[in-house]
């Protein structure tokens, strides 16, 4: 019987703790909400520096709470698992399409975005969101090569190709991204195909090619910067933003869009249907569409802006950077990744087979 009494005390105690804690939490949230307007943004890291957020708060009185995700799929999973705290999210090209199809994004009222006209002509109607009904294009970039030119000398003006990875001049200091689609895309482009190749035979050949070089490279990693900094890697398959941030620290690191072509990606802002602070979200969207703000963000974040007056404000060196604003011929060799549908099952298996 003594046990039962102890159990009762224990259970009552637990109940009391839950009630008190819950009430405290509820009050804390309530007072938080009423004190100051908030905006909860879920973004990629390195995109929104603190000083820009502070500037926004000064202008509008809205406090931004920033949280990060490391992949589109993680963002998707969070929203689907019922995370309702986000007012603004940053899905990439293919994820925007998926979210629009599933009705996860709020249709935009263009009347509330007076700066929307700043967007360049060619991004007004992207494939994933014709007419920009749900998304606001923010940035774009590529997936290419970063090379430590102090260790791997290049002839002046030379634009290296994907052979740098697959017939590397410094094999044990070379890395590939740890990302199925990107790795297959690189090999496919090198072999003269495109990243959205659907032919099984071609994919099998790609796998065979990748298996052959697996032992030559040092590693697969999606975070090559730390290894580059220590010279453990001299040639890396990397996203342009990461690579250009590394290049800012050490000028001998150079980023290239390989001459055969590359994968192009774009990040957009969108308001999820579950957003609670919609008015604040619109204000923020309009704020980052402002020419000065967009220009500063692009310069600091090392991505290509989609905003015409923001581009006009950029320093000449940035405007003439061929990896950020490539010429038409290069642009024609950039590919967005398409949804491969059922083919993913096969590719998924190949990705495992590559590492057996």
């Amino acid at each position: 019987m003594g046990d039962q009494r102890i159990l009762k005390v224990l259970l009552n105690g637990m109940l009391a703790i839950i009630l008190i804690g819950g009430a405290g939490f509820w009050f804390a949230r309530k007072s938080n909400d009423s004190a100051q307007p908030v905006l909860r943004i879920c973004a990629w890291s390195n995109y929104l520096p603190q000083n820009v957020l502070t500037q926004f708060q000064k202008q509008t009185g809205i406090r931004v709470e920033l949280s990060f995700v490391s992949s589109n799929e993680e963002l998707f999973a969070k929203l689907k698992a019922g995370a309702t705290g986000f007012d603004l999210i940053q899905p990439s090209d293919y994820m925007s399409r998926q979210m629009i199809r599933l009705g996860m994004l709020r249709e935009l009222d263009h009347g509330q975005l007076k700066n929307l006209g700043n967007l360049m002509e060619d991004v007004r109607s992207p494939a994933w969101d014709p007419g920009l009904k749900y998304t606001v294009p923010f940035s774009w970039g590529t997936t290419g090569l970063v090379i430590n030119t102090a260790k791997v000398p290049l002839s002046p003006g030379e634009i290296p190709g994907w052979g740098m990875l697959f017939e590397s001049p410094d094999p044990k200091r070379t890395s590939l991204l740890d990302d199925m689609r990107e790795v297959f895309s690189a090999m496919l482009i090198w072999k003269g195909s495109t990243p959205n190749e659907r032919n099984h035979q071609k994919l099998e050949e790609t796998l065979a090619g990748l298996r052959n070089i697996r032992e030559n490279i040092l590693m697969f990693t999606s975070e090559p910067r730390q290894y580059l900094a220590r010279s453990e890697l001299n040639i890396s398959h990397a996203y342009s933003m990461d690579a250009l941030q590394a290049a800012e620290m050490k000028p001998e690191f150079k980023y290239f869009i390989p001459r055969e072509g590359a994968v192009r990606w774009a990040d957009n802002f969108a308001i999820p249907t579950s957003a609670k602070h919609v008015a604040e979200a619109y204000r923020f969207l309009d704020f980052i569409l402002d020419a000065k703000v967009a220009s500063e963000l692009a310069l600091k974040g090392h991505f290509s802006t989609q905003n015409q007056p923001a581009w006009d404000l950029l320093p000449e060196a940035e405007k003439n950077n061929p990896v950020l604003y490539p010429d038409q011929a290069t642009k024609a060799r950039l590919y967005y990744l398409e949804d491969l549908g059922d083919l993913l099952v096969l590719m998924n298996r190949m990705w495992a087979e590559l590492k057996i």
Partner: protein
Amino acid sequence: MKKLVLRLRDLPPSAWIFFAWLVTLSVLPFLIILAMSFAVRSESGLISWTFTLANYERAFHLVYLKVLAKTIFLSLGATITCLLVGFPVAYYLARATPEKRQMGLMLLFIPFWTNFILRIYGIVSIFGNHGLLNQTIMRLGLTDSPIEILYTRFGIYLGLVYNYLPFLVVPIFSALEKFDLSLREAAMDLGANRWQTFTRVLLPNVREGIAIGSLFVFIPMMGEYVIPDILGGAKEVFLGRVMVEQFFTMQDWPFGSALASVLSMGLMIAVWVRMRFEQRKAGPTSHGLR
């Protein structure tokens, strides 16, 4: 059912907490995973609740069987290495004076006060191509180019053994601690040599500790994915990694669930068979000489 309810009532409150813990954090999640493994991945990346066995068909594809075989091979190798390294450590600790014993156990666990990821990067800073070890031997002129330890299969081994060793030492240590040393003397007196004493007297008495310790390290090793990623350069496939990828990058939860279910059920069957085997063997001779 009635019997079960009655039995639950008889349990002390502490067992209730454990029981609630087990159900909500172990059994329930497993059942959810099991249910998802029979569902279909809808085109949009969601789960559609239509019954299918296709995920299992995929999971038993030759490629994934090879992945499983490789994972077992690497984990088993690391477990055996842990045993070879860990047994003498446990033996020493069990025989040491109380002060030394306490000191030894503390030293064994001090690294675990640090975050797991940090410990793994610690290994990188020691064994990396530009790490302490390689810099030292290159300064000494023993070699011109660094010895490649990391980003190889050996790197994975090293990480697994380093990280799981204490979890194997402790169960063996507690088994050895209970072992009556006079049995060893008796065996020697009766003419057994050192090897015979070890294999016929000592080992049978600590078998349970060895088995539990081995399972403690082998099972989590199978699901490991951080160590193969960071120390193996993600060049070797591990079942844990393939599963994680299904959830976080491929958006194929049903297939990930099928892989997880196959692994969990396989391990459960293995443990169950072993328990049956032990029960049959258990008898009056289990603690004596054989």
